[in-house]
């Protein structure tokens, strides 16, 4: 490890980290917002469910590099535009979360949903005030997977020259110099852990009602 190099590059590394966070978190939020109505649709219609979940699964299998290269053609953006990365990762997040949201809504006890309807909740009120809140634990479990997966996928964009922590890998590779590579890996792991922890905290804050698991 060359700490002196790290010291000199500190500003640059913080800049890369900032971009990494932005490129990983923005698609997470956008993806969730898009997956909510799609997941609701899949949950509502037994015929739509296999179709949506199937398409989502297929999308997830498209290699990320291919998507990064293809999207500019489809979107008409420049190849170096960070928007491509945001769009690609949003697609992956949606692909992961459509099924998660549908399953979260399915996980709400039938008795509870029926009681909400019978007490005079309209469909949207039941969704917003009963079904989604009760589905939060399942959704946040899926969100954790998507967050970690995004952090790791963002680094692939380094191959296109878009600045983020992945740039440290290409740099280290070109210079046959391990320090940036190790720094990049450590920062990616720490970032993933922090995002994961934030989602856990958010989930706990939103669900004070879940049974507390007693540590044994």
């Amino acid at each position: 490890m060359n700490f002196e190099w790290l010291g000199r590059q500190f500003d640059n590394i913080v800049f890369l980290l900032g971009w990494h966070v932005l490129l990983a978190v923005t698609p997470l939020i956008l993806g969730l917002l898009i997956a909510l109505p799609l997941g609701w649709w899949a949950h509502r219609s037994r015929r739509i469910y296999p179709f949506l979940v199937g398409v989502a699964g297929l999308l997830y299998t498209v290699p990320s590099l291919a998507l990064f290269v293809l999207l500019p053609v489809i979107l008409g953006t420049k190849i170096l535009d960070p928007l491509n990365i945001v769009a690609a990762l949003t697609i992956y997040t949606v692909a992961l979360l459509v099924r998660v949201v549908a399953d979260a809504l399915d996980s709400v006890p039938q008795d509870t949903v029926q009681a909400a309807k019978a007490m005079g909740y309209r469909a949207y009120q039941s969704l917003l005030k009963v079904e989604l809140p009760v589905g939060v634990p399942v959704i946040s479990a899926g969100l954790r997977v998507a967050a970690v997966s995004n952090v790791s996928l963002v680094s692939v964009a380094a191959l296109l020259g878009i600045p983020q922590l992945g740039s440290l890998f290409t740099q280290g590779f070109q210079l046959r110099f391990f320090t940036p590579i190790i720094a990049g890996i450590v920062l990616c792991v720490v970032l993933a852990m922090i995002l994961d922890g934030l989602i856990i905290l958010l989930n706990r804050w939103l669900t004070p009602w879940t049974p507390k698991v007693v540590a044994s």
Partner: protein
Amino acid sequence: MIRFESITKAYPDGTVAVNGLDLEAPTGKLTILVGPSGCGKTTSLRMINRLIEPTSGTIYLDDQPTSGMDAALLRRRIGYVIQHAGLFPHRTIVDNIATMPLLLGESRQKARHRALELMERVGLPETFANRYPWQLSGGQQQRVGVARALASDPAFMLMDEPFSAVDPVVRAQLQEEFLRLQREIGKTIIMVTHDIDEALKLGDQVAVMRVGGKLAQMATPSELLTSPADEFVADFVGRDRGYRSLGFTAAAGSVAVGEEWTVQLGASAAEAQAKATGAWVLVVDAGRRPLGWAQPEQVHGELRKEHLNLSGTSAQASGTMRQLLDAALSSPSRRGVVVNEHGELLGTVTATDVVKAIEAEPHLETAR
């Protein structure tokens, strides 16, 4: 009043769940829909608050047809209790109960205040207010379910197998409490059950439905037992209906209660022997409340708790013939223990005495 006018529910696959049902649930009374599975009783119930839409026919709520109403607004006028309570797991008990008032636009403070009142009414301690449903037992959750249905003080209540998911002891307790509550509040209630005993115990009137969604008979519990309309109803009401109909005959004074000598715990074997009639002596506590029967010949030294035989039931003098007869039949001494409303011993009766009184009752055939 809730009135069904030739209600039919047929599904696209040709199944007819309810077939031309005419029914009237009078205001302030508890009407029970009972029948085997597949008789359309739950479907009928759910058509009232339009969780299911009828294929033809009209349901009236106080002479207003429900078909023209906004379904959500209609439902907010009707309390609804279901089998597993169906509480909202993410809300505290007090917020669960406050649901309907809040939906109807009550202030949060008023709604919570009302919810706390109702908790007391259904026998839930105030300390439960801020707990979540998973922290309560099935019976407690069901009480919350009842409180939640009552929270907006609706004129109508629908109950779908409300007591069938709890164990028999808790069920009996909930039934008793619910009867007491209904006597105070006098709601117009329709309840669905598959349990004929529950129907006979709780209903002001009982509608027996048969498979295919047709009404077989609508009558009071004692009418059902004493004059079932046809073979199906007779079968459904059960084999021991003669015995059970005694449950609707008040004993009130018609059976002579004989005196019974008693001993208390700690009595000597000799005293127990002296007070015994036949092989058995009745043991009571200091307040003359019966504890059980003992056989003096098994007592050495003094009479202790482990000598007690607890198999006998006790009947209140103001109870029914069924309770009196059961007390006599279940007693090891064949003498049934009779108590007053405070549980204090009045004396004993024999099965022969009870049967004689039953034979002497002229109006036993029907209570019409």
